[in-house]
């Protein structure tokens, strides 16, 4: 193998490494990245939509967002839908208007790698 060919292969390998390397932060299962309302935040307007961003694309058909009051009562939510341009974003509309108080969002999602994950986070609404 000539020296220039070796150099070319090494440089190509480096390009590939950089391309792959820039994405190594991607994980396989879906975990919570951020949410609206923000995790643990206090909001002053009643949220109409609960939106969560995950670390991996999810299968909408098997992913859910539930909302509970501090007392454990479930609030009616519309079906969860993915952002058409970004399958890592899942949102569900809140039916009606929330009363002031503490709430807990519980999410359970199916990642495209066919594994389920779930979690929960609180927020409160104080007008």
């Amino acid at each position, binding site marked *: 193998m000539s020296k220039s060919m070796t150099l070319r292969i090494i440089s190509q390998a480096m390009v590939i490494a950089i391309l792959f390397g820039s994405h190594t932060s991607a994980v396989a299962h879906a975990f919570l990245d951020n949410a609206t309302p923000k995790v643990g935040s206090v909001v002053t307007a009643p949220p109409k939509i609960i939106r969560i961003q995950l670390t*991996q694309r999810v299968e909408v058909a098997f992913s859910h967002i539930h909302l509970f009051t501090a007392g454990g009562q479930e609030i009616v939510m519309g079906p969860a839908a993915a952002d058409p341009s970004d399958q890592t974003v899942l949102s569900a509309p809140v039916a009606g208007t929330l009363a002031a108080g503490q709430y807990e969002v519980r999410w359970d999602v199916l990642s495209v790698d066919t594994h389920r994950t779930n979690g929960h986070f609180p927020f409160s609404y104080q007008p």
Partner: protein
Amino acid sequence: MEILLVSLRFVQYMAVMILFGSSLFPYYALAGKGSNRGCITDIAAFVQRVAFYASLAALLSAVGWLGCEAVLMSGDANGYREGATIWTVLSDTEFGEIWRWRLLLLLLLPIFLGWRLLRHRTPLVWPVLVSGIFLVASLAGVGHGAMGIGFSVWAHLGNQAVHLLAAAVWVGGLLSLFHTIRYIRNAALGVELQRHALARFSLVGFVAVLLIVASGLLNTWFLVGSFDALLHTTYGQVLMVKVACFLFMVALALFNRLFVMPQLAGAGDGEASLQLLLRSVVAEQIFAILVVASVSLLGTLAPAMDRMVM
């Protein structure tokens, strides 16, 4: 449920890898000088017979795998017998998008092969080969291969497909090689044909091993991420067992190439070296089975990268 899924994954991987690897074998090992028409016909018949049983095993395990996914995805223990759940898995998930085409092909293949076997048609290898390529490569899109966003999905998918295809060339090829060596010995076709097939297989095997190592390293980078994760997660540990079994396979292949093959070519007791070669090929197949078993387990575990994030 997890144990069942691991077993079904094992049968599925093994079956489609044999389907592809054994059917590719005659194209490189028996072509060219030194080949013999009788031998080619026999190996084609062998491939078609193997492919019939492999496609049946693949069909059954694919149906079972779908049932397991219906349970795991819906979180409902009865999901496997709920028509609506099965339908949602097939129509609304990335797994289903791939699986419905695999199921269709796996339904047609045993019917086609069974009909040919019953009618004693001249064995055809190429339909098996083409289906095999699709069945092996499409496994890349199921599970961890599907992870990532944007470009990295395609890079990971392509890499995974190369890894699986190269592994299948080796694992499935071993089965055909074993049969061919025995056929040549029993038909007393001479060392010339034997040496030809062995030399071709070892060349193709060498390229396959290079591809397996290169794509495997990239994959490890994707799913493990760090040396620490390799040592301290179940995923990493199973992966190391897999790599160890793979290295045993490579060692056996080197032993065949550097020690047994020259012995076969030289004067002396050809039968003894042939026995040694057959035994070593069987040992290689056993390690190949262990590798595929660990792959079946890996797919159900959280990649090491996740554990480190958690």
